[in-house]
């Protein structure tokens, strides 16, 4: 488990001397805060329950980072690439402070429409998160397979699921976008949502 995926370099809106490097390090979702002057690391936060980070959002003049990604619990047991329909993913969203403390972390997953525990596993990934400070809301896009919210034509296909959270990470609203009777996957882009 030594996978590394440096996805994002983002500024601290309140401190010009540091940057965040966000992605995957040592196989776990990681946020590294470092000095711009010489690259020295101030702190490194590592998520045991988030394998990858696909999105980050900040508000202007705010301390907090909102991040989201996925947790792949069976990766250490051999669920490695290429990733098929039998690999389990859970969508994960989190809020953290600029000192590395995590305010909350939420896991969101549904049951695969064809779930049998061997050929088909639950597969949900958070691909985008956007924080709207003035409205105290967080918008999330999940690429998932959830029988609970796909109304019909259930199958082994990714849908796009939009979730509205409050600042505390509680769900306020969920909307699912499916292809109806068309049988193909919808993939979401990383950081693929904005207000």
């Amino acid at each position, binding site marked *: 488990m030594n996978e*590394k995926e*440096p*996805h994002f370099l983002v500024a601290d809106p309140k401190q010009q001397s540091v940057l965040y490097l966000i992605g995957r390090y040592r196989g776990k979702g990681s946020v590294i805060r470092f000095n711009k002057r*010489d690259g020295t690391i101030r702190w490194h936060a590592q998520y045991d329950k988030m394998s990858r980070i696909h999105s980050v959002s900040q508000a202007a003049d705010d301390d907090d980072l909102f991040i989201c990604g996925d947790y792949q619990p069976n990766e250490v047991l051999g669920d490695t690439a290429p990733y098929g329909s039998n690999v389990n993913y859970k969508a994960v969203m989190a809020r953290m402070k600029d000192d590395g403390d995590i305010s909350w972390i939420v896991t969101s997953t549904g049951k695969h429409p064809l779930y049998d525990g061997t050929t088909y596993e639950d597969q949900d990934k958070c691909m985008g998160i956007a924080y709207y400070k003035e409205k105290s809301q967080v918008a999330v896009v999940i690429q998932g397979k959830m029988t609970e919210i796909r109304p019909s034509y259930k199958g082994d296909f990714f849908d796009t699921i939009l979730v509205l959270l409050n600042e505390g990470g509680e769900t306020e609203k969920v909307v699912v976008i499916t292809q109806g009777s068309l049988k193909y996957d919808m993939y979401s882009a990383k*950081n693929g949502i904005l207000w």
Partner: protein
Amino acid sequence: MRLTSKVQQVLLALSLLVGLMTPHVAAQCEDAIWPIYAGGSKGSEDVRCFVYDPIEQLIIVGGVTGSEDFAPAPNDHGYMFALDLSGNWKWGNFFYNVSYAVSHIDGCQLSSDGSSISVMGLGNSQPLLMDLNTKDGKFNRFISLDYMYATADEVPTYTTFGAIYYDKRDYRDYQPYFYTSFLKDGVMFMLRVKDESGVVSIDWN
């Protein structure tokens, strides 16, 4: 004379009709309907860059395509395009150096002052740092990171995920710096590239 007059009247009526319709057609173009589709018939497009530019009020999208009826050739090409908030196409580009295409756009972010977009990708299998005008998609900066010890037997493998930040005015020396991170032969690198008056140098890594 009478026939000529009739023809003139018809032409006048047609010209008036066209004249009246033109703004209407233009207005219809302003009311583009979401969703917008961009790509080739193979649907072989990945989106890896998605940002909103509040100054120009544009949604900017980038990624990789392998569709021969979208890209100029059937191999991997990085692409970028911009839409306004109504979904109207503002600009779209593929990128070429003299001898190779930018094969991947892996990530992007607005620069520190928000006036341009910094883009990370791959070209000729080497990491690229780019800065583009958000208004028209044209290059401001194009930097290719070449491994100085590469030989015919030792060619490093780079993997990029899109980590880039372009600070146009450093808080200490007021100089512009690119920050980036990528993998070289599976090892993660973080580095700062100084971009002073067109002279590029790696400041630290």
